[in-house]
């Protein structure tokens, strides 16, 4: 994983970076392994998972989104994969999540804002697709370490005519 830190690379800023990178790599690995319950456990109880439709979209409530899930809808989305007649999700897409350019943007002591880039290769049903996205995580410090409070995935082709999206970014 290529890593950059903003400003001075002090010991103080390097320590959380190691933890941040571990979390992002773990998230990617769980998605690529299809271990979705464990993936969901990385998210806080008030988490938001957002894939905007428009570049730079400011608001998920007054403009539509490719995906905009609060915790309840994310649970529904993950559960759906387990149904024997989940037509578009059986088999689950095979993916490779490649994360790069990780940067810690803000750290207020409670939450960290981290940006990265994602290249995801997806294969399902005789079709391979390549996705590119800029990603922003809001990570919260909890008793057992960092958890994901929000994830925003800005696909480079979010506004184009797209076939259905089933895989998780």
């Amino acid at each position, binding site marked *: 994983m290529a890593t950059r830190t903003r400003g001075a690379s002090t010991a103080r800023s390097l320590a959380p970076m190691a933890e941040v990178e571990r979390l992002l790599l773990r998230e990617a690995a769980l998605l690529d392994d299809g271990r979705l319950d464990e993936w969901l456990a990385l998210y806080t109880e008030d988490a938001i998972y957002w894939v905007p439709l428009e570049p730079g*979209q400011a608001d998920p409530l*007054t*403009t539509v989104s490719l*995906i905009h899930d609060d915790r309840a809808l994310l649970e*529904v989305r993950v559960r759906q994969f387990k149904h024997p007649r989940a037509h578009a999700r059986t088999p689950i897409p095979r993916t490779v999540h490649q994360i790069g350019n990780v940067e810690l943007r803000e750290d207020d002591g409670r939450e960290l804002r981290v940006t990265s880039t994602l290249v995801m290769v997806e294969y399902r049903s005789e079709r391979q697709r390549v996705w590119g996205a800029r990603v922003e995580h809001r990570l919260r410090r909890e008793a057992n370490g960092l958890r994901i409070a929000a994830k925003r995935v800005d696909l480079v082709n979010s506004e184009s005519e797209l*076939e259905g999206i*089933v895989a998780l970014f």
Partner: protein
Amino acid sequence: MSALDIKGLVQPDRVHRAVYTDPAIFELEMERLFARAWLLVGHESQLPGPGDYFTTRMGREPVIVARHTDGTIHVLVNRCAHRGARVCDAARGTARLLVCPYHGWSYATDGRLASVPFPEGYDGLPASGLGRVPRLASYRGFLFASLAADGPSVDQFLGPLRTSFDDFVERAPAGEVEVGGGVFKHVYRGNWKLVWENLNDGVHPAFVHASSIWAAREQPPVNGGYAEIAIRQMLQNGAPPEVWEHTGLWVTPYGHSYMGDYHDDSRLVPGMNHPAFAEYRAALARRLGDEGASRVLGELRWNSIVYPSCSFMSQFRQLRILQPLAVDRTAVHAYSFRLKGAPEQMFRDTIAFANVVNGTGSPVLTDDLEIYERAQQALATASTEWISIGRGRAGDVPDREGMHRGGPGTSEIYIRNQLVAWVEYMTTET
């Protein structure tokens, strides 16, 4: 392909697979159906001021819909009269002149040629400017265009389906709706008819959407908040068979249909009990009176399909415009509308509903798209020629204003009716 050959493809209770898979039939559809019928191209609110334009397709034809300086609206072929390059590239914009990027020919927003660089080099300039789509008409702000110079009026074409547009607009306290909130654009690898044959089908939800119904049922109740609308809609797909059997299904000439007597706001959204809904109803009553508001909100209409280009539903202000790309590839653009004069929360409900029903990543829509693709793949097999469209046929009955009604709400009458119109278009030579 002779008229006899085409007629033979559609029989009272079955249709031949070639209707969905034969590229020659698709080419003929572009010529005889999509180049003739009134196609919905958009809504007047997308062009608030002079010089505003948006680009879209009519069938496969790329067009510009623009408001000229005098306020008139024009539908122009998006192809330079000189060397054929696409003139407007953006999905929408505002311009005094539409300038071709290739050699700088420029056009006024009514399509007239405005200027040509180095004019002396051309041996006589074309006077016509951009190609003009011959007919444009508005019904309650919805813009229809036809690539044919002659044909029925929009009023004739829509017939009783006009009441669905009335329902859509009358729900706005200010009596007007406007496009807002972004446009979903999804595509599937299947024939364009598959989406229209699915939309008013009351049997498919329990099967196609079994996984999202189950996933929503397993979820602890969420009261209020963003998720409630999405989860309620997933649950609604799992309504018991009686609900679907008692849904009303009306069909009209020209292949249109609508689903009525379906379900109401109190069942589907936080709706009647939500403070925003009370505020909305009061605003509606200020224009229509209390009785008028009750009448408008009592209309339980769900999807209306205007064959072959669009479908819409008033309760959550959704509109889909279909664009056939190839015999086995189709794009659907889904728009949301704001009820002018309604509390902002109503529009937020619209967006939440759009995400779950029309969202490219929706747990619901993705299963529909998967089924269209599986149908297309299997229809390509040559060993079995026919598929069935006969469900509920014995119950088809004539109804008011030249409509017919399906006996049970699960009747395939709307598919049969679409294919009757299809044969009529396809066997009428130009």
